[in-house]
């Protein structure tokens, strides 16, 4: 996943404004409006890569073709909730599981009747009559 990132280095004096203690590091994600997510792990490659894997995506991903790449290319375990209802009861345990299993699997939500969801439905071979559908891959 690290190839998806831009890497920057800046001076220690900039750290405080981003709640970082220098020397330190933070991740900035567009989906989080570039709020700093400070790395607090051990200074090892494994710890750093775990931090990247755990945090590069939101807990629940709203499916778009733009963010489909890690779902299909990097061999992540992904759980898809296909539904046309944003308020149905099953949305809550899905979000809770996403929080609980952050970094271990990607949790993706999508409808199938419009936008990129139509492509996803074709890819997963799901039709309207199957909804709501929970698919693991």
């Amino acid at each position, binding site marked *: 996943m690290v190839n*998806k990132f*831009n890497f920057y280095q800046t*001076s220690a004096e900039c750290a405080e404004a981003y709640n970082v203690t220098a020397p330190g*590091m933070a991740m*900035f994600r567009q989906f989080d409006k570039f709020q700093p997510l400070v790395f607090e792990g051990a200074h090892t490659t494994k710890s750093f890569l775990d931090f990247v894997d755990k945090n590069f995506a939101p807990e629940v991903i709203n499916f778009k073709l733009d963010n489909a790449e890690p779902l299909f290319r990097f061999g992540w375990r992904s759980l898809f909730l296909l539904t046309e209802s944003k308020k149905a009861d099953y949305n809550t345990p899905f979000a809770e599981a996403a929080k609980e299993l952050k970094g271990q699997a990607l949790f993706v939500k999508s409808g199938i009747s419009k936008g990129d969801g139509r492509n996803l439905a074709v890819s997963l071979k799901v039709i309207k009559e199957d909804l709501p559908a929970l698919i693991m891959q």
Partner: protein
Amino acid sequence: MNPPQYIAFVELLHEEKYAEKYHDERKGNPVLKWFTEKNGKVKGGDKILDLLTSGEELANYIMKTAGTGIDTISKCRNIRKRLELRNLNLVYFGEQSGNLYKVFKK
């Protein structure tokens, strides 16, 4: 880039010598391999990656692997503007030394 980095396309069906030496059945094709020069000899095989699908991603990989993939932001006020260039960013705050910087650079 200085020194220049080269990208080569090899069609393994027609280049049996390379296929024998570098093709890895387990990984399949296509793959990227990174070659480095040490003591006057060029050696490959340190890294075999999945194909990177966008030009930007490939450029990022080359910059990072060649050791020049970290951009320096000299003024704090420019940080936000730089972050907005990409969806995902990692920023190191501090001197270019120490364990954390080594991990970040790697």
